[in-house]
């Protein structure tokens, strides 16, 4: 493993023993490979290294607009951006994720100054989430075995975001339509990350899938 990376993924302990080859992504130590090739019916990936920040408060939406961040109009929905996404959690909280760490750093810096828009204040939210990606044709089956939401019944065109409980952990889930399948992004409190990873991976493996590296 790399001694030099400043950051460790919240999922690191869950797969440390199975990984031999490490890389550093966005300053975070991540597996370079999980040692299985081919496309299994379902894969689980660690995407915690994506840069991320959050904000909340009555003025959060307006403040984000002022920063040129596209704001999803509906509660519990998300919008894709050029290099990431903006998710609206309930009414007045936002999660912004971007592959470019600088973009997030700028926003975080601005936020920490204590921001206020015409509609009220906007507060920073530290987001050190464990971030997972579940993909492949059997991904929905994993969800059906772990959480009580009918993802197949959601209208993906509206960019739905679901806050629910998965194997006993509060999670945030969005479905991303991809050319050949639907991939699910899952975020949870980092201290539940290893448990969530291990539990999901056990089911993923039962279904013939495995952990996989997802290139950010």
């Amino acid at each position, binding site marked *: 493993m790399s001694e030099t990376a400043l950051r460790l993924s919240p999922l690191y302990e869950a797969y440390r023993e199975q990984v031999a080859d490490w890389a550093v992504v966005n300053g975070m130590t991540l597996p370079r490979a999980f040692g299985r090739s081919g496309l299994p019916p379902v894969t689980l990936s660690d995407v915690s290294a994506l840069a991320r920040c959050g904000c909340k408060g009555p003025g959060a939406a307006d403040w984000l607009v002022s920063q040129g961040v596209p704001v999803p109009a509906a*509660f*519990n929905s998300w919008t894709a951006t050029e290099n990431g996404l903006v998710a609206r*959690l*309930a*009414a007045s909280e936002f999660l912004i994720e971007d592959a470019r760490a600088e973009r997030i750093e700028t926003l975080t810096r601005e936020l920490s100054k204590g921001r206020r828009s015409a509609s009220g204040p906007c507060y920073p939210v530290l987001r050190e989430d464990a971030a997972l990606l579940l993909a492949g044709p059997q991904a929905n089956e994993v969800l059906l075995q772990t959480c*009580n939401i009918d993802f197949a019944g959601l209208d993906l065109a509206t960019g739905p975001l*679901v*806050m*629910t*409980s998965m194997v006993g952990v*509060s*999670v*945030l889930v969005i479905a991303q339509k991809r050319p050949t399948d639907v991939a699910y992004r899952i975020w949870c409190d980092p201290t539940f990350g290893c448990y969530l990873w291990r539990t999901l991976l056990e089911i993923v493996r039962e279904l013939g899938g495995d952990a996989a590296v997802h290139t950010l």
Partner: protein
Amino acid sequence: MTCPINGPRPVSEFFYHGELRPMPDPQAATDDAWADYVFNRNGAPGVKREWWYHLPSGVWFIAERDTATDQVLRTYLYSDAVAEAVQ
């Protein structure tokens, strides 16, 4: 149970806090009246306004629920209830 923000969800995703009860003015209330407020409950069945919390999203809201039948008549945010009361 239908969260006003997250929509219908299984009741296991929620935390029940109890009936919405106005707090008497602590200065004006006698010790007895304050004890009644702190300890006593309207334990009889009926339609009650209750605090509920959606655990995964952290949304508090008010549910009007018939505690005899478990039927939820409506749910709304507390701020909306206040707005309604003001009008």
